[in-house]
């Protein structure tokens, strides 16, 4: 029996620049991801993996091709609707955390809900911060936290709206090995326990091997797509 498809990418291409200087960052990429999958995208820098993630996250428009998230063709939506869609269905985690410096941990985590005019569910919030080990840090500002803690806050922020898809761009790129392991471990916990679909970009082979499926990119194409865990 097939699992539910969360993401479908059809013939995605992205060209930067025009004419002679045009660079093809993505070249006709197609794949699909099922609910609850943990996918790692690996490849050398310049292989197009970050471009891919940005397009999946609704941040950068593709030159050609379609992205369906839970059957919604996201680039057929207008800007306002896409922004709302992104807020509710996509959780993004960046290498440099991108937390809001003037908001404390609690506010940073609940930001996606506040933008929607929603109140966070107390129970859900408590479960998330306990798992992330942030319960005693709620009133801290981002600059009072270590890198690992800041990244944990950004995981919380990505999770709070229970998004259909969580995307992480080199989430451990700025962390030491102990913190990297913790971050990956936490993502795995949410992936397994909440069936949170997760796509992560990394150049670290060891991190990629933690995923259920590894896609390798080169020159804007997916050259390998392997399931390593079922």
């Amino acid at each position, binding site marked *: *029996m097939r699992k539910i498809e969360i993401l479908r990418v059809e013939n995605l291409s992205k060209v930067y620049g025009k004419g002679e200087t045009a660079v093809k960052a993505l070249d006709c990429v197609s794949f699909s991801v099922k609910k609850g999958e943990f996918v790692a995208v690996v490849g050398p820098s310049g292989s197009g993996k970050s471009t891919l993630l940005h397009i999946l996250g609704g941040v950068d428009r593709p030159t050609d091709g379609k992205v369906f998230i839970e059957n919604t063709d996201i680039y057929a939506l207008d800007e306002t609707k896409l922004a709302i869609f992104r807020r509710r269905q996509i959780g993004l985690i960046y290498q440099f955390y991108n937390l809001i410096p003037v908001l404390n941990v609690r506010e940073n985590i609940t930001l996606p809900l506040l933008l929607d005019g929603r109140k966070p569910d107390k129970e859900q919030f408590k479960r998330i911060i306990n798992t992330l080990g942030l319960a005693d840090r709620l009133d801290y500002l981002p600059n009072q936290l270590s890198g690992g803690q800041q990244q944990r806050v950004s995981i919380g922020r990505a999770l709070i709206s229970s998004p259909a898809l969580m995307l992480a761009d080199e989430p451990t790129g700025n962390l030491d090995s102990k913190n990297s392991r913790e971050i990956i471990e936490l993502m795995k916990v949410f992936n397994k326990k909440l069936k949170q679909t997760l796509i992560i970009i990394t150049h670290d082979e060891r991190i990629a091997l933690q995923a259920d499926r590894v896609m390798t990119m080169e020159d804007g194409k997916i050259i390998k797509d392997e399931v390593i865990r079922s």
Partner: protein
Amino acid sequence: MLRNREIRIYILLLGLVMLISTSVIFSMDKTAAAANFAALASVIVISVLFTKWRYGKIAELSRYLRRISSGEYLLDIRDNKEGELSILKNEIYKVTIMLAEQANMLKNDKRFLADSISDISHQLKTPITSMFVMTDLIQDENLPVDKRVEFTQNIKSQLERLQWLVTSLLKLSKIDAGTITFKKEKVNVKDLVNKSVEHLLIPIELKNQALEIIGDENAVFTGDFNWTSEAVANIVKNSMEHTPEGGKITISFNETSIYTMITISDNGEGIHKEDLPYIFNRFYKGKNAHDNSIGIGLAMSKSIIESQGGSIDASSSAEGTQFTIKFYKSVV
């Protein structure tokens, strides 16, 4: 809309306010009364229209829910607009996705059950057939005594295997069905590991293997001591069986702020890459599996660990295999 009692009361109250205020003002000034009447009347009309529109949206949602309950799970009502109504649609959509997933899982369970029964029948059939042959042979009166002893011994070992198989299956099914309550006690990992390897020390010594246990003596986790020790023992047994004589098995453990981890690694023959995703599946036998292996030990370990909210994972290379067990401090 008028069928809703609260709407009838609402309109009635609005009408009453209009009538009373108009008649009060009428006793003072006729023109003011007329203006008041017109203003209030238009307010009533507007609010009634709005309410009607809102109720229309609710009716739309209930039509949608009816279609979902008839099985159209992937119908998308999300409109990606601001506001409560759109959030409600979004939440309803999430619930329907969850429902669809559960329906899927039910179907999978059904298939899994059918597969299991066929696997089990197969596992039982082989020894039974061989025992039939053996008893036929024993019935022969001219059979020499030493042969008779050999055959009865063979039957006995087959029966032991069957008994073990049935007991394991029973345990496994109890775990999977959730009828076993796992204790939630504080378990010291060092004690746990020592208990797990207790019965394996002799076979390990017979194979001349080195067993190393290293880790933080104070490492603890919350779980069931006896069941977890059985799970760990199964893994260590598996490592021992797939490590050649003179090999080495290392069990290490530590506790971090997120989880308590136990790793069991060996320098044995390793697991084939194609087998690795499936080794925890019940009755799965990889390329390196022994002839008398059934493929139930690892499946049982996984069930025990996952039932307690933990996770187990295997990685392998030419240098050996490593199993990692984790128990998380807080589970979402």
